């Protein structure tokens, strides 16, 4: 039933949960294009602008990361990823619908269909700006600047443990910004 690529996801996630960092990096890299494709399909079916693909992909990745304990290692990973993606897609459409953005944008879509892989999403960046300074600088160091934990710790004169804690709290706070927004 499950194709080999998806079975490989299961293996990678099992290794990730056991603490294999390389496996986790590889898994996230594999999941991203697949999530992007299904978000794009979902948006076009809903008649929503494709410009928001990357925002939803990022929210989905954050949710997958923070809620990975909710995957049952006895079951295939793909349906779990699909269910989270769908939930985030619907949630995002609802949120944007309430803001009244969906109705105006189909016009824009045809004008600027960006290469999504390159496109920067705005929601996460905007949420990042509202984080406490310590968390924000750590998240930025690791994400945008691409520093390792060791490098970030040295530059910010923090211990590596403190960097890890700030990173984790920062990511959780980012995700929380979305679930609290406009409800």
């Amino acid at each position, binding site marked *: 039933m499950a194709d080999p690529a998806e079975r490989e996801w299961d293996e990678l*996630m099992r290794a*990730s*949960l*056991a*603490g*294999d*960092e390389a*496996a*986790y*990096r590889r*898994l*996230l*890299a594999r999941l*991203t294009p697949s999530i*992007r494709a299904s978000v794009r399909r979902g948006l076009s079916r809903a008649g929503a602008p494709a410009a928001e693909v*990357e925002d939803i*992909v*990022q929210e989905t*990745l*954050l*949710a997958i*990361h*923070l*809620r*990975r*304990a*909710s*995957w*049952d*290692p006895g*079951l295939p990973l793909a*349906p*779990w990823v*699909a*269910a*989270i993606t769908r*939930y985030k897609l619907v949630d995002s459409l609802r949120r944007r619908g309430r803001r009244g953005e969906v109705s105006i944008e189909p016009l824009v879509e045809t004008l600027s269909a960006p290469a999504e*892989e*390159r*496109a*920067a*999403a705005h929601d*996460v*960046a905007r949420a*990042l700006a509202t984080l406490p300074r310590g968390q924000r600088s750590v*998240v930025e160091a*690791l*994400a*945008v600047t*691409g520093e*390792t*934990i060791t490098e970030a710790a040295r530059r910010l004169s923090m211990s590596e443990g403190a960097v*890890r804690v700030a*990173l*984790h709290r920062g*990511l959780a706070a980012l*995700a929380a910004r979305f*679930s609290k927004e406009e*409800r």
Partner: protein
Amino acid sequence: MRTDDLVRALAADGGRVRVPLGRRLAGAVAGTTLLVAVVYLPLHGLRTDIVTLDWSLRIAFKLAVPLAAAIAAGALALDLVRPGVPPRRRLAWLAVVAAVLAVGAVAELAVLPTSEWWPRMVGRNALRCLATVPFLSALPLAAALAVLSRGAPLSPAAAGASAGLAAGAAGALVYALVCPDDSPLFLALWYGIAVAAITGLGALAGRRFLRW
């Protein structure tokens, strides 16, 4: 922010999960229930016939039903925070527990003379049961919700209700060790009302706290 950048930050945070969610939930509910029992029971007098294992069938029934309900509802709550898992099989467990309770109540009606139905159902301490069970369930409910907030419920209210049912049943189990009324009729009615109230509270709390 570019998605690659976000992925880098997620990877740096790492994928390790030290304690599986199911074990965490079982530990949280069992642990807080034990804590509540240790504080409550000495204050309110654990029944001596229960301590000496001098159990009638009715006592065994009133302990077994809440225990089974707590386990079934906890398992259901766990499925409800796992996206992509159909909750059907765990709902069946819960239906079995409800059916057993119904059979017990009907059997009680069958063995008792009609004149005894009402006194057994109302018992001696209905109000105390109604007041105490929610009180004993509060901490297990909070603990269950805290664990479930790591999950991803497609319906936060349903997951919260299931957590409420598990916590309510756990609280009912503790109260059953003190409660002087052993009839399945009393169990079905008063424990039932108290546990239903916690279930409703759990649903409200789930909607508020399990959102993601």
